[in-house]
C-alpha cells in the first residue's frame, strides 16, 4: 500500500510550506481514484463515440435517471443498500491482503436463510423476529465466507478462486432449496419460498420510498470504519495485510484475524440478502442472484477498501445501475451497457495503482529536487 508511510509525512509538516505539503500528501488518496474514475468515464465516452452514440447524451441520461429528480434519487438509494454490504464483504478481507470476490454467494445464502426461516418465527412480533432473521442470514453467510478464510489460512487455498467457486455452489444450493424443500407450492412460474408474513416485512424510511437497508448499510460502513481505523484489531489486520510473516513474528493472531474479518465481511453480505428478501422481493427466489455481489467488488476497489469511501461510491454506482432502463429505452443501448461502463472504470482504477508514489505533485520531498 502506497499511502502507508506515516514516518515520512511527519517531518515534512514542519517545513515552511508544511500545510501545503501535508495537503499534497493526503490528497493523493483522493485525487488519484477520482482521476481514475474520470478517466474511465472518458474512455467509455470514447467507446460510445466510436459506436456512433453521443457520450454527452449518455451521461446526461445517467444523471437524469440516477440523480436528476427526487424519484431517481429514491431509485438510486434503494439500490445502494446491497452494494454497501457487498462492498464491505470485499473491503474487510482486503485489509488483510485477501481478494474475496464471492460476496454474491453470501448475499444469496443470507436471503435463503431469511426466506426459509421466516415461517418458523412468524409467531413472534416483528421487532423481535426481524432481528432474528437478520442474525440467521448473517450467521449463514458469515460461516460461508469465513470458510473461505479458513481454507486460506489452514490449507493455503487461493481465496479468490475458492470464494467465486463457492458463489456458484451457493447459487446451486439456493436453486435446490427454493425448488425443493422450501418451495411454496403456490409459486408456479418462479419457484420461491413462502411469502413473508406482513409483520415480518421491512418497510420504508418514513417519507421516502427507500427501505431501511440504506440506513443499516451506512451504519455498517461506519462500524466497519471504526473497527478498521480505530481499534487494535483493525491495526493488527493492517500489519498482517502488509506482511503476514512479520505479523506472525510479532505474535499477532493471524489466523483469528483472517477468520474474523472474512466471517464479518460475509455476515454483512448476508444482511444484504435478508433485506433483499424482507424488504424487496418478499420471498427468497432466483432474483437474489442479481449481480450486486459483483458490482460490490468494483465499489470496494474504487473506494480503495475504505469503508467510509464505500458510501459515496456505492451511491454513484447504484445511480449508474438505476439508469440502465432509461438508457435502453432512450438510446437503444443493450442492458449490458452499464456492465461495460463498470468494466472500463474497474480497469482504469487498477491502472492508477501504478501511479501511487510516482507523481511529484503528491510527494513534497521531491518538489525541490530535479528527480
Amino acid at each position: 500500500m502506497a499511502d502507508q508511510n506515516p514516518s515520512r509525512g511527519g517531518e515534512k509538516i514542519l517545513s515552511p510550506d508544511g500545510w501545503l505539503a501535508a495537503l499534497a500528501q493526503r490528497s493523493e488518496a483522493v485525487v488519484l481514484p477520482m482521476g481514475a474514475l474520470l478517466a474511465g468515464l472518458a474512455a467509455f465516452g470514447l467507446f460510445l463515440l466510436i459506436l456512433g452514440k453521443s457520450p454527452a447524451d449518455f451521461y446526461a441520461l445517467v444523471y437524469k435517471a440516477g440523480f436528476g429528480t427526487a424519484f431517481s434519487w429514491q431509485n438510486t438509494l434503494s439500490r445502494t443498500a446491497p452494494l454497501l454490504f457487498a462492498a464491505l464483504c470485499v473491503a474487510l478481507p482486503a485489509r488483510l491482503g485477501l481478494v474475496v470476490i464471492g460476496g454474491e454467494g453470501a448475499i444469496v445464502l443470507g436471503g435463503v436463510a431469511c426466506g426459509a426461516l421466516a415461517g418458523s418465527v412468524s409467531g413472534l412480533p416483528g421487532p423481535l423476529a426481524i432481528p432474528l432473521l437478520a442474525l440467521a442470514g448473517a450467521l449463514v453467510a458469515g460461516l460461508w465466507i469465513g470458510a473461505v478464510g479458513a481454507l486460506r489460512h489452514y490449507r493455503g487455498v487461493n481465496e479468490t478462486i475458492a470464494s467465486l467457486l463457492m458463489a456458484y455452489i451457493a447459487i446451486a444450493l439456493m436453486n435446490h432449496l427454493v425448488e425443493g424443500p422450501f418451495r411454496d407450492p403456490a409459486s408456479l412460474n418462479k419457484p420461491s419460498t413462502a411469502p413473508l408474513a406482513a409483520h415480518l416485512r421491512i418497510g420504508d424510511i418514513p417519507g421516502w420510498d427507500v427501505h431501511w437497508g440504506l440506513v443499516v448499510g451506512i451504519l455498517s460502513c461506519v462500524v466497519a470504519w471504526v473497527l478498521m481505523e480505530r481499534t487494535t484489531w483493525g491495526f493488527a489486520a493492517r500489519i498482517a495485510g502488509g506482511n503476514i510473516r512479520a505479523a506472525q513474528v510479532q505474535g499477532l493472531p493471524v489466523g483469528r484475524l483472517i477468520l474474523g474479518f472474512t466471517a464479518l465481511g460475509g455476515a454483512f453480505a448476508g444482511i444484504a440478502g435478508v433485506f433483499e428478501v424482507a424488504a424487496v422481493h418478499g420471498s427468497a427466489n432466483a432474483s437474489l442472484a442479481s449481480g450486486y455481489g459483483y458490482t460490490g467488488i468494483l465499489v470496494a476497489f474504487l473506494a480503495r477498501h475504505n469503508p467510509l469511501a464505500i458510501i459515496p461510491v456505492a451511491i454513484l454506482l447504484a445511480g449508474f445501475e438505476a439508469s440502465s432502463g432509461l438508457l435502453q429505452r432512450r438510446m437503444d443501448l443493450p442492458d449490458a451497457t452499464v456492465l461495460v461502463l463498470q468494466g472500463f472504470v474497474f480497469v482504469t482504477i487498477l491502472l492508477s495503482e501504478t501511479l501511487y508514489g510516482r507523481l511529484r505533485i503528491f510527494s513534497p520531498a521531491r518538489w525541490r529536487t530535479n528527480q
Partner: protein
Amino acid sequence: MTEADLGLWAIPVAILGGAIRVSTPFLFVSLGEVLTERSGRINLGLEGTLVFGAMAGYALAYETGSPWIGVLAAAFAGSLFGLFHGLICSLPRVNDIAIGIALMLLGMGLAFFFGKPYIQPVAPDLPSIGFGGWSDLPQVQAALRVNVLFLIGIAAAIALWWMFRATRIGLLIRVVGDSTDAARAMGLRPAVIRTLATAAGGAFAGVGGAYLSLFYPGSWNEGISSGQGLMAVALVIFARWNPLACFWAAILFGGAGALGPALQSVGVSEGYYLFYAAPYVLTLGVLIVTSSPTRAMTGAPGELSITK
C-alpha cells in the same frame, strides 16, 4: 431402441459422451492458462475471454457462414484480451489477480453488449466425426460423436507439452516463469515474453468459447458459460502446470459437469441442482487437497503470484 434397453448403463455412457463434449472448453482454457502461468503470470480473466470468444465466434460464424472463421475470430479476440492483460500487468505495482477480475467483468460486459443482436439468429455448427459406428446403440453413437475441436485440443496439448520440454521457446517461457532475475541475467526481457505468452493463452481461451457457442451447447446466450473459465484456472493447479495432465483433468471435470444431465436423461430429477454443482464442488475439493499452507506447490512456476 429406447433408453430402457441400456438400463443403468445409460448413465456411464451418457457421462462418457458428456465428458467428451463438456471437456473441450476446459481443455482449451486450461492450456491457455498453463501457457500464461508457466511464464509467471496468472490470468483470472479467462472466464471473460471465454464468454467474449463465444460471442465473437458465433457472430462471425453467422455473418460469414463459416464456423472456422468464427473460431479464428474467437482466437483473435482472445489474444487481444490476453495482450491487454499482459500489457497492463507489465506496469509496476499492478495486481494481476485484480486485473483478471476486472477483465473478467469487462469481457462479459462487452460480450453481452455486442452479442445482443446474435441471441436469435442460428449460426452454422462446427463439424464432428462419429467414432461410434461399430455399435448399434444410438446412445453409444451419440456419445462418441467427437467434435473436431476436441481432437485439435488433444493435438495442442501434446504440442505444448513438447514445446515446454524440447524447444527453445518453451525453455524461454519456463525461465521467465521461474525467475525474473535469472531471465534478466540471461539477457531476456521477461515483460515481453510474459505479455506474448498471455496473449497466446488468451487465444486458447477464445477458441474454448467458440466451442461453447458453435458446438455444445451450440448457441449464443448470456448464460453460455457458468464458470468454466474460472474452473479451468483451478484445473491448471490440479494438473501441475503439465499440458498432458490438463487433458485428463479436463475429461474428469467434463464428466462431473455431465453428471447432472446424465442422471436427468434416465429420469432422476431429484436434487438436480445439487448435481449441477458437482463440477464446482469437485474443483474446490481438488484445490483443498492440492494446496498447502506451508510449502510451495510442486511444479509451480517460481514467479507465480498465486503460489507465493
